[in-house]
Structures are given as C-alpha cells and as structure tokens.
C-alpha cells in the first residue's frame, strides 16, 4: 500500500468488535474512521477518500451490500470488504469477487483481516504488467508460465504455477489459506482438512529445496508469505 493513504472506514454496529478493530488497525498503522450504521456509512463514505471500506453485512438500518451499491452509484471507487456472519455466504456475497471486492466470514482472525485489507488496498497501485516477475533469485515468466531459480527451471503443474504467481504478486504480504482457496481454486468454503498446507508444502519443496535460502514462509495460524531475505 502506498504511504500516506492508509485511511480505512470500518462499518460495524457491535461496539466491542468495532473497538477491537479500531485498536488493532490503528496499531497496524492505519488511520481508522468508524461508522455504526448504514446511514452513517453512507455519509462518511461519501465525505472522505478511503483506501478500503470494511462493512458488516448485517447492519441495524440498511443491508451492508445495499450501502456498498449506493456508495458505488455515488462514484466511490474504494474497494469494499464485506464482513458476513457465519453460514450466510450467499451468492450475492460470493459474487463480490468479480467486482474486485472481497468478503470475510465471522468469526475471523485479525491477521486474516489484515491480509485481506493489504491485498485490497494494493489494487490501486499495481504497476503496468510485466511478463517476468522476480523475487530474489526466483523468476516467473507469465507468458510461458514457467518458473526458475538461479536460471534452473522448476517443474510446476499449472495449478502450482498459479499458486506461485499469486504469492509472487503478493510478495511480502501474508496470504491466508482462505485467500488461496478463493483465488486459486475458486472455492468458497473451508475444507475441514489441512489439504491447503499439504499442497503449499509440495510447491514449497519444489521451489525451496536445495536452494540458497527459502522464499515461502509459514505464518503461524494464518497462511503463508513469499519474501526474499533482505
């Protein structure tokens, strides 16, 4: 995320949850505004320029998605992160991915929220597409869809390449298991097994085994982060 534009609007009606969010986001270096209702969100959202707006699906007055639509109609371009209560991820929420916005199901870990916010806020400052992306001694070719380290090719299945590409694009940021499921497999549920870890483990062996330093790091309790040593 570009410096200086780390202002976030949190729309949450439960005072305790809202308080926790404001505290933790502030600690993480965000400047946070809070709205406790849909109407307040509408006025605040239209008044200032936010990097991301997080909005609870169930608000006392207006439905979160309706607020989002309204702000969109008013020309607000900020990405939205819809926060939905357990078990009500319906098509409307799932459809958000297409619009470049995101959703999160309650209860969520704060690290997961942070990872989503980082990913959403970054969208605006993606530079022109390059065909070859590099992290440390890893190079991935987006055209031929091949990867190599120190010039030595790494054999990857198409899906494995997709996963690596996603991690490279999010270099230095945490990507959660749920984010991987959504982006790589287009799945919107949490498989009750550790299959994602197993899968990432295999990619990691291919990428990191017998190399000078590891690139893929486990972030305990959340997911993974791809970064080169400084």
């Amino acid at each position, binding site marked *: 995320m570009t410096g200086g534009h780390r202002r976030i609007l949190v729309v949450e009606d439960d005072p305790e949850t809202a308080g926790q969010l404001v505290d933790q986001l502030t600690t993480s270096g965000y400047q946070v505004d809070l709205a406790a209702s849909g109407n307040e969100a509408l006025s605040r959202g239209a008044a200032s320029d936010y990097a991301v707006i997080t909005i609870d699906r169930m608000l006392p007055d207006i439905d979160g998605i309706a607020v989002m639509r309204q702000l969109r109609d008013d020309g607000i371009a900020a990405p939205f992160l819809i926060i939905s209560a*357990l078990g009500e991820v*319906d*098509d409307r929420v799932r459809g958000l991915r297409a619009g470049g916005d995101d959703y999160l199901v309650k209860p969520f*870990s704060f690290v997961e929220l942070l990872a989503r916010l980082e990913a959403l806020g970054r969208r605006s400052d993606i530079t022109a597409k390059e065909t070859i992306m590099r992290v440390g001694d890893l190079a991935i070719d987006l055209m031929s869809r091949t990867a190599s380290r120190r010039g030595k090719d790494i054999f990857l299945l198409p899906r494995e390449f997709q996963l690596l590409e996603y991690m490279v694009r999010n270099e230095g940021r945490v990507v959660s298991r749920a984010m991987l499921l959504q982006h790589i497999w*287009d799945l919107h*549920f949490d498989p009750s097994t550790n*299959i994602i870890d197993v899968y990432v483990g295999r990619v990691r062996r291919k990428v990191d085994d017998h190399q000078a330093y590891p690139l893929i790091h486990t972030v305990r309790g959340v997911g993974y982060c791809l970064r080169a040593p400084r």
Partner: protein
Amino acid sequence: MVSGTVSVLLAKTLASSTFKLALISIGTFGVIVSAIFSYVYLSTSSYVRSRSDRAIMIEYSSLRDAYERSGRDGLIDLIKRRMADKSFADHLYVLADPSSAVLGGNLKAWPPTVAAARGWTEFRPLQPLPGATNQPLLRGMLETFPNGDRLLVGRDISDLDSFTDQIKKAVIAGVALIFVLAGVASTLVTRRTVGRIESINATSRAIMLSGLDKRIPLRGSNDEWDRVAENLNLMLDRIEILMAEVKQVGDNVAHDLRTPLTRMRGRLEKAYHGQRTAEGDQTLIGDTIADLDAVLRIFSSLTRIAQIETQARKGAFRTVNLAEIACEVVELYDAAAEPAGTRLTVVGDREVPVTGDRDLIFDAIANLVDNAIKHGRAGGQVVVTNETVDGSSVISIADDGPGIPPDQYEQVFKRFYRLEHSRYTPGNGLGLSLVAAVARLHGARIEMLDNAPGLKLKLWFSAPVG
C-alpha cells in the same frame, strides 16, 4: 354422554368436506334424475294426448264426410247410430243449428264456453254426461258448416288427465325417494370417513400432548384409510428416528465441543491463578486460538450441512462438468496422497455433465477422496472414475483399504459417526454427512460397494436435461 358424543360426531359429519361433496353429488344426480323423469312424464302425457286427438280427428272427419255426403239429416242419423253403439260410449257429439239449438248428440245444450268457429276446444259441460259421475273434462274438434250448422266431435279426456296425474305423482315420489336414500347413504359414508379421520386426529393430539410413541390404529380393511394411516405411521417412525439422531448429534456435538472448551478453560484458569511468563503466555494463547479454531470448524461444518439441507442453494445450480471437478480435486489431493505413498488416479470420460453447485460437489468429492486416502491402504491406490451410465452421470471413488462392513454402510452417513478402527485418525466424522447432504440436495443416489478389497463409493447424478 353417549348422546353427546353422537351429536358431536353428527355435527362433525355435517361439517365435513366429504358430506358437502356428497351433497353436491346428490344435488347433481337429483337434477339429472328429475330431468329424465320430467322427460318421461312429458313424452308419455303428450303421447297419450296425441293418440286421443287422433281418434277424435278420425271420428270428426267421418262425421264431416257424412254431413257433406248426406246433409244435416244424414249426420243426425249417424250421430244417433254412434250414440247407440257401446264402443263409442266415451265420445261426445253435438250438432247445433245457427241459433245454437241442439239438433242431435249427447249434450242437451250447446256448451256456452265454446264460441269459436272451428278448431280444438276444451271445456267442462254444465251437467255430467250420461253414465259419468263427476264433471268430466271434454276435448273436441269444432266445425261450422256453410249454412251455420255447428258440429262438435270430442271425447272425455278426464281419464287421460288422471293417468298423467298418476305418472306425475309417481315421478315426484321417485325423485323424493332418491333424494332421501342418497342423503341417508351419504350421511352413513361420511360418518365412517369422519370416524377414521377422528381416530387420526385423536392420535395426532395424543402425540402433541405426550410424545412420538403413539401410532394410528389400522383396521385391517386394507383400504385407502389404512394406507393413509400406514404412511402417517411410517412418517412418525421417520420423525422418531430423526429426533433420536438429533439427540445423538447433540450429545456428540456437546462431547466434541466440550473437550477443547474444557482444555481452554483449564489452561486459562491455570494461567489466571499461577505464575505467568511471557513465553508461557505465548504458548497458552497460541494453543487456545488453535482450540477455538477447532471449535469454530465444527460449528461451520454443522451450519454448512444444515444450510445445504434447507435446499436454498438449489437456485444457484448450473451445468458443471463432474469430470473436470474430479480432476481438480485429484490434482489438489495428490499432494496429500504422495506422502502416504498412495497412487491417486482419475480415469473415465472427460465430459460428464451434472446440474449442481460446483463448490458443494467439489467439497463432497474432496471429502470422499480424502477419506479414501486416509482410510485406504498406505502404498495402495485410489481410483476416481467418471462415466455416463444409462443417462446418469456417475462418479466413483474406490480404495483398496480395509473397507467398511456392509452392515455399517447406512451408519457411516450419520453425523459424527466414526468406525471403531478410525477413532484415532483425524477428522470430525462430519465428512460423509456432508456428502450425504450434498447428494440429497442434488437428487443424487449414493451406492456403496465392496471393492474387494476396499470400499467403492458411487454417486449417481441424473444428467442435465437438454
């Protein structure tokens, strides 16, 4: 008390829909019968009348012929002869001159009500005909000859009238009798129906008051009422089983949740009362979050199954390729099969269309493949086959592990059910319930087969139409 019950039953009979239906059919039937009877009555009476009219016409023409042939005197002669003839006893003849003085016939005076020149007339004479007791109804044909003489030829039609009257009475009595009989019959039939429904209602009330163990008594008559009672009883059996399952699930959930919750509580309590270190706190918090996540996962699995079972997701069904989903699952789970030394392969058709929800089908196949890898033989193989069989889209997942005893095939789909020997492999026992819920939502059939050795599980989807 008894009369009270009877009157309640009667009131229910009268208010029942069967009775109303019976009344409607009686009404319709009655109208039809009345119409038929009226037709019989009308055609009989008109036939009788037309026969009598024809006889009058014949007699009238022969008399007119006699007048035209042999004049007034010849006609008077003929009338006299006719009156003497017994077989013409019920005939009426009157010949009068222009001043209405009677020249011959069996009326002493020209009937004053008859004023027309010619044509049909009906009247009652001032005095009875000779030999008749009551005042008869006469019907006759009039003719006025060129010299002003008037001839009336007719018959006593009182008998005909009373004959048609008899028919009319019989018809009315018949219709009335039919109505009464039909009314009585329908009351009896309705009462029987109401009695059966009452016994079903009584059982329902008993169930609401005391519990699910009551059943509706069968009469052994093997009729549709027994069928209804049987089906309701089966439904009650089903509900009772479901209730028992819910209770079982509740107990299991409580157990599965209590374990991590107790651990967390104990840990927190210990930290609260005991000595705390930064490192200890770190471990405590990490472990607690992990346990909480386990609890939340059980919750979301349960709500997910419950959500699938509400059928709400049917609206978002699309045509998806079963084989493609299977390949994606296999590709993903190959990562898990590799460390176990299991060879995971997908074979069969490349295009197997199914109408459904990709996420759910993926989840179901993933669960089955995951199970096959976990419960199959280490170093064995798991084969996923996609095919179209007789218009059905079929996916089968087969392993070569120890399998499941056939008598436990049904059991494994229950929530939290775990086979004795798999108690110590990871999993929460919800996987197959989810598969079952997804299959139910898609109208798919689950078939379990002995793969000798191992288990083969088949999902039969009906292929999308068109």
